[in-house]
């Protein structure tokens, strides 16, 4: 049996694009009922049209086939509602009345402009918990800055300390800043839920993505506040460990991370490399010396690692108790025996045009003794209109039709024609290839997740 910890909790989800949906996806994985609202005029465009299966947009309903949308919105219910109409607002308030949490990640002015700010919602449902997620926060002189994950990361200090000194500071390249914003919103919502269960009081939560990231480099900032020292980017060097580097392995673009925490591990590494003389070499005989001479040290180690396959080498090192990790590509992540055995990926059937695909957990923790809860596919546009409007809110089917005619709700979004991702351009980009395409990816996935993966 699966353990749905948040069963019975209802969340009105106004979030779009990446950060907000990440947060509500997490609540969905924990078993809450998430009702995602999209406007027929402004559907969740970007993720609905990114990563079509096999890079072919389906002819019909291409808005239901985007891979990014499926990863970000699995387990949620989807309805359409135009909040700029009076009737839309009225229905929205009815929905808030029977819900526990409202989450949104519009620009700070939007909800108040719609007349749907916290003070208004509180009148309808006094104990509602409302979470607003934005780049820099809902008040303050810069609150109206246009912010994406890039700006949030850049203004947090995290980017400044990331990357090699001889190259520019480096962004996360996988929207970590967005993840931080959405997931911090979720953490705050559950904190407020605990308080509400105890006292019956709701509240308003203001999450700034940039601040959510800053708290994750709190220890680095302490060096500034305690010692006035600004941390500069140092690649993979560690202040207390050496060797501590990402080393090249055999093959075109293959790497392994090795981190030596103590002298026992260092001696074991010297022995494995067949270079026992290094442990008595004054340049490397203790941690302090190794940190000082790490460039020389790294060259010696890389000569050795470059003779091995990265995964094979990790296994050799782990046998001797040496902390090491192959730097996995996304293909290797999907085929990783540990993740597969632990059930990290869930096979979700998306029906026509997409088929079954392995979808990664957004809430990876397991409840011991219970099966993991497998969410339903991300909602097709307006898929749950009838359930939410008729069953939950008691709107009759005739009325529903009328609302459709009046364009308060809709079943077909305003949506551009599907466009494939320019994989050719990406492979050629900057002359060296910004990524790889694996033409046999479905066969690979089938080996791990079953023969029917990707059969449409």
């Amino acid at each position, binding site marked *: 049996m699966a*353990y749905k*910890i948040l069963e019975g909790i209802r969340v009105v989800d106004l979030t779009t694009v*990446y950060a907000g949906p990440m947060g509500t996806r997490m609540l969905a994985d924990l078993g809450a009922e998430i009702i995602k609202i999209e406007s027929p005029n402004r559907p969740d465009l970007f993720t609905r049209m990114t990563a079509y299966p*096999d890079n072919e947009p389906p002819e019909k309903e291409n808005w239901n086939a985007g*891979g990014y949308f499926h990863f970000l919105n699995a387990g949620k219910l989807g309805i359409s509602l135009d909040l700029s109409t009076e009737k839309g607002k009225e229905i929205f308030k009815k929905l808030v009345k029977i819900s526990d949490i409202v989450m949104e990640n519009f620009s700070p002015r939007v909800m108040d402009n719609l007349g749907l700010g916290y003070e208004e919602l509180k009148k309808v449902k006094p104990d509602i918990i409302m979470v607003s997620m934005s780049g820099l926060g809902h008040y*303050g002189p810069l609150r109206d800055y*246009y912010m994406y994950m*890039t*700006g949030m990361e*850049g203004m*947090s200090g*995290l*980017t*400044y300390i*990331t990357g*090699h000194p001889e190259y520019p500071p*480096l962004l996360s*390249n996988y929207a970590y800043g967005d*993840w931080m914003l959405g997931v911090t919103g979720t*953490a*705050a919502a559950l*904190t407020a*839920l*605990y308080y509400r269960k*105890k006292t019956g009081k*709701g509240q308003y*939560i203001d999450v700034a993505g940039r601040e*959510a990231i*800053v*708290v994750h480099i*709190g*220890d680095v*900032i302490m*060096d500034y*506040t305690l*010692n006035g020292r600004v*941390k500069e*980017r140092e690649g993979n060097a560690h202040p207390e460990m050496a060797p501590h580097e*990402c080393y*090249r392995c055999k093959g075109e673009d293959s*790497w392994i991370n090795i981190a030596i925490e103590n002298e026992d591990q260092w001696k074991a590494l010297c022995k494995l490399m067949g270079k026992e003389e290094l442990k008595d070499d004054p340049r490397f005989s203790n941690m302090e010396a190794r940190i000082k001479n790490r460039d020389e040290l790294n060259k010696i180690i890389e000569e050795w690692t470059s003779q091995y396959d990265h995964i094979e080498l990790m296994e050799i090192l782990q046998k001797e108790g*040496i*902390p090491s*990790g192959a730097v*996995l*590509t*996304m293909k290797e992540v*999907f085929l990783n025996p540990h*993740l597969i055995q*632990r059930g990290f990926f869930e096979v979700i059937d998306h029906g026509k045009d997409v088929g079954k695909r392995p979808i990664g957990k957004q*809430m*990876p*923790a397991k409840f011991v*003794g219970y099966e993991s809860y497998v969410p339903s596919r991300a909602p097709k546009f307006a898929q749950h209109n009838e359930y939410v409007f008729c069953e939950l809110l008691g709107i009759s089917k005739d009325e529903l039709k009328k609302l459709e005619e009046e364009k308060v709700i809709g079943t077909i979004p305003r949506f551009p024609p599907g466009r494939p991702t320019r994989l050719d351009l*990406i492979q050629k*980009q900057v002359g060296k290839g*910004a*990524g790889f395409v694996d033409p*046999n*990816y479905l066969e690979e996935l089938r080996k791990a997740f079953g023969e029917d993966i990707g059969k449409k």
Partner: protein
Amino acid sequence: MGEEKALAGLRVLDLANNIAGSYCGKLFADFGADVIKVEPPKDGNPLRKRVPFYKDEKDKEKSGMFFYLNTNKKSITLDITKKEGADVFKKLVKDANLIIEDFEPGKMKELGLSYDDLKQINPDLVMISITWFGQDGPYKDYKATNFTAYGLGGAMYVMRPTKWPDIRPAVLGGYQAEYTAGLIGYITSMAALAMGKSAWIDLSVMEAVTSTLTGIMGDYAYLGFYRRTLPWAIHGFPTQENYPCKDGYVNLTPGIGGTQAIAELIGKPEEKDNPLLVKAGARVKEPEKFEALILPWLKEHTKWEITEKAQKLRLAFAPILSPGELFDDPQLKEREFFAKVNHPEMDEVTYAGAPAKLSETPWKEGRAPLLGEHTKEVLSQAGYSEDEINALKEKGIV
């Protein structure tokens, strides 16, 4: 703003030695739970040996790492690896709601403190075990650090600038794999506690890292594509990258202003129809030409000058701020983001504050405890007399 504490009345026993579990416990403490850090006698928690140190003095009460990850907690010393210590721990478990632990899988069982053992004492108990790879699976006993778990989780391979896709990947700064796991740990255990459900939660740092890769997981499952940089920077490389300016770097993400607005920004309105500004394809094809157009102007202006002008043009450009520069940021000042507290060994300490602003139950500042500062208080609450506590002290149990 309210003044109540969201988690008042909740008791947490924090056995964590690493960053992830300690950060999880910190979140509980900062929102008002009664969090007791259980530390080994003598040396205390291993994080007390980690940099940065106040004035670089290597002292167990002066670690900034320990301070930051243990604000608002109480500290007791207790050797749970000895039978008598484990018995004291079990007494504390009676009144606890949550246990956070990060020992290697199987260790708690060996000490007679497995979830099953403890549930007999307290049936409502929630316990979260945060380990590098989880309680089972082929990597269960693998050794790891933040750095190696980050690479194995799949995040590291893409950590390269778009312009240099085949250089050595660089880890995200600080300890993001561990903080990520700590935050997920908080969410899961908070969910169980809010719903009044008991649970043993098994969380792996590697899986926490992989779960942050949402979109780029989709790239492989749907397209067979795996990237090694951020190739389709939505607006077309080299926009969205970080570029040098007069006093550092700025990030060039156009946003809703559209790339044409860059012409106005750099004082060359006549360039607004230049294909390099209008067409992503043209930029991607000849990034050096785009750079030649914009770099000279960037080099003459500071990151805040560029950002302020760009934001008025609805360009989402942003300054790359150093940890020190955060303290001059007008937004963080207005939002009173940084917290300040006094500490007996470090004078006044300033540190990063609330991850989120809750209107009724605001986050609270508070210092980290001295080693064993609350041993007496906590043990007498649990029913130990002064003589008993002294006897335990003599035996080295507390």
